[in-house]
């Protein structure tokens, strides 16, 4: 039986806690009285995923069974969350491939000829044929990838379909194939607190529509957009919930509790630490983003978008929910070893900061781990490392847009990036993220920054930290000292989040 979330209060006997830092593993001795909020242990995955999916499709929530909704002669589109739905690519067989096979089997039995798949990628990069074929499996690859019946959504496309909505200021631009379909089946791994439709609205629409979804304070936009999309094309959603088993096998100890490490775990930690230290930086930066995540499906829900999102969130709360504890003055986070926008690529400073700030200050409806006016300490030796193929716009964002003062209007710069022909060309034909993605991530960071008094980065490039508007400390002890100055509290309460981090409790 997996144990629930746990808050470890640091005392004199607590060993130093492992923390990720820019591709390295280090240990940090936390001040006595600090707490470490561990998420629950990974829940047991479903035994027979295919059978679970079949059963769920036949008894959906708030909808007719899928087999009854699929009719011969209809135009069917199946969209699925792309590779950025998780921090790393999932270990094979990818549950998306299995779920799609089951959906397509029902579509084949219903004798639907006009079926197309859409990789719902929003503003993120295209997936390579190899990534697609390993994610979807050989059957779907033979039937859809080779025959060009699978398309990768193009948010900058000129042939997007305009859906008008009285509640939305400007027309909603939607993927044309989806708009013309009789039914959209959406397969998601990524339920959202902000809105049940956030995922759909930010992955299969045009750039301007996505911009209005992924930004601060406009989360309810997704509901309006989602309602308009659903009015145009009915949606049947299949939501798979994953456990948090990021690491397995010999590296499993990385997500176990620090005070429970056995001797073998300590030895493995030392070996891994030395190996990472000895690995040359260019190799280490890439190696960490390559190993697949060992997350497995713990629940399947299908039916209406709102109902499946609610069901998935309930499961995720069980899997990621932290133990109840008051918000701290200072929140300590390590840089994550992986990021959805850096799979098989490099974790750049903006991605690390985005992870830290969105983990610390989640969307409305959840109580942050840190108090308003508190401080976040991020362990990240900031360095300007980017993937020149995938993160072209990130490089220019750092060189041409930063530094940004709080309250600066970035809309003009974002417009330039969003309409830049070169970025659009790279987004459409190469493997680059969209030019506007760094601005959207920054907007989410800004929302968190306005809640905090400061962000302190431990180690790395001073100039880069200042350009991003952060303070920089040489050591963790200095960072705590600086944080106590900022919060005007000689003994600030400190909470540390490990990787993978827990989710805060809902404010209800």
């Amino acid at each position: 039986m997996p144990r629930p979330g746990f808050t470890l209060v640091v005392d004199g006997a607590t060993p130093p806690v492992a923390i990720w830092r820019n591709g390295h593993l280090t240990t940090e001795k936390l001040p006595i009285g600090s707490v470490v909020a561990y998420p629950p242990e990974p829940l047991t995955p479903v035994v027979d995923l295919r059978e679970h999916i079949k059963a769920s499709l036949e008894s959906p929530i708030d909808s007719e069974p899928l087999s009854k909704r699929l009719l011969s002669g209809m135009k069917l589109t199946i969209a699925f969350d792309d590779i950025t739905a998780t921090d790393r690519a999932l270990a094979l067989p990818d549950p998306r491939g299995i779920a799609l096979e089951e959906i397509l089997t029902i579509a084949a039995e219903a004798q639907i000829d006009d079926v197309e798949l859409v990789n719902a990628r929003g503003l993120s990069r295209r997936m390579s044929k190899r990534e697609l074929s390993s994610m979807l499996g050989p059957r779907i690859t033979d039937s859809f990838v080779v025959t060009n019946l699978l398309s990768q959504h193009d948010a900058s496309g000129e042939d997007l379909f305009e859906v008008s909505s009285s509640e939305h200021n400007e027309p909603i631009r939607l993927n044309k194939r989806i708009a013309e379909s009789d039914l959209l089946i959406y397969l998601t791994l990524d339920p959202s607190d902000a809105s049940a439709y956030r995922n759909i609205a930010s992955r299969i629409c045009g750039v301007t529509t996505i911009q209005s979804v992924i930004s601060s304070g406009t989360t309810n936009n997704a509901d309006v957009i989602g309602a308009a999309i659903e009015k145009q094309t009915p949606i049947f959603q299949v939501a798979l919930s994953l456990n948090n088993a990021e690491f397995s096998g010999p590296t499993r100890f990385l997500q176990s509790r620090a005070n429970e490490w056995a001797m073998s775990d300590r030895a493995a930690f030392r070996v891994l630490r030395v190996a990472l230290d000895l690995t040359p930086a260019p190799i280490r930066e890439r190696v960490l983003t390559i190993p697949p995540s060992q997350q497995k499906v713990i629940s399947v829900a299908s039916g209406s978008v709102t109902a499946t999102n609610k069901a998935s969130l309930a499961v995720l709360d069980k899997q990621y929910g932290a133990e109840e504890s008051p918000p701290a003055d200072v929140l300590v986070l390590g840089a994550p070893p992986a990021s959805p926008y850096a799979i098989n690529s490099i974790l750049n400073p903006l991605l690390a900061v985005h992870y830290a700030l969105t983990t610390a200050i989640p969307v409305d409806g959840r109580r942050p781990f840190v108090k308003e006016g508190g401080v976040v300490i991020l362990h990240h030796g900031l360095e300007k490392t980017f993937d020149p193929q995938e993160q072209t716009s990130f490089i220019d964002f750092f060189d041409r847009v930063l530094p940004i003062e709080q309250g600066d209007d970035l809309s003009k710069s974002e417009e330039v990036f969003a309409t830049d022909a070169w970025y659009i060309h790279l987004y459409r034909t190469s493997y680059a993220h969209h030019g506007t993605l760094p601005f959207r991530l920054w907007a989410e960071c800004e929302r968190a920054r306005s809640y905090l008094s400061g962000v302190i980065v431990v180690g790395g490039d001073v100039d880069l930290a200042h350009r991003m508007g952060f303070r920089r400390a040489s050591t963790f002890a200095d960072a705590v000292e600086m944080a106590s100055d900022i919060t005007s509290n000689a003994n600030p309460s400190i909470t540390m989040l490990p990787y993978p981090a827990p989710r805060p409790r809902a404010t209800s």
Partner: protein
Amino acid sequence: MTALDKKPKKDGYTPKFPRNWFPPPKNMLGADYDTDWARKPLARVLRAALINSITRPLIRTVAKPTIIGIDRLDKLKSPAIFVANHSSHVDTSLMMAILPKRFRRKVAVAARHDYIFDKWWKATIWSLWMNVVPIERNKASRRSVELPLRLMKEGWSFALYPEESRGPNDFLLPFKPGAAYLAIKAGVPLVPLHFKGTRRIFTPYSRRFQIGKTRVVVGEPMYALENERPQAFITRVQAAVEQAADEGNTNWWAAKVRAMKGETPPLTPPPGLTGWRQTWAATKPEPAMEIWKP
């Protein structure tokens, strides 16, 4: 008589020893590509070395073939025409790996003139390695008929894919009667073969080999009946390939009985099954074998 006195051929290529032991000039490509050099002793020795040292070990490792019915070739005399279903580039290498030595050392493979013979280096490599000869598939040119007939007269066996192309899935494309026409003209038997699993080993969209298992079933050699038309003959051969597949899936006796009753499962898609549903049906996983319980 000096070399200058020799009258050049129409195409401007004057073969003279040892010139004809080497590939033709780079500008000679397509259906006109002269592959005679690849059947000279030097090329044959090199080919045997390549097949024995690279192709066969690689196929044994990557494709792990199970061979059924190879004994049916014991009493067969060369030349013959081997016909098989075609779903991967691995098919030809697999055929080279499983054929008995006496066939393997003297077999030519028919290939599309516009696919293999469009670049001089491709033409050279494939001619040397697999002894491919160019065949025009969209028109019945004289050369495409005369060359195989001449080779069979010289004792060379032939390997042909009557589907003419790798299909989109494992369902058979309709067999074209060219192979049957050649067999009737040359008076040689057609040997039906069925390959299973080769598409997975080297898929049309991948550039990498995937280790897997393959199965080859060799059918009974077949002769044309008296006054049989090529189309009728190739229809019988297609049925024999389907029977070979059935034999692989079941056993010799069950396949034989079903063939006698006309109940051999067809390898062609059911009527009306098109587009993605066809590939979906073709890739349907086989049911897991049930463990016998007393």
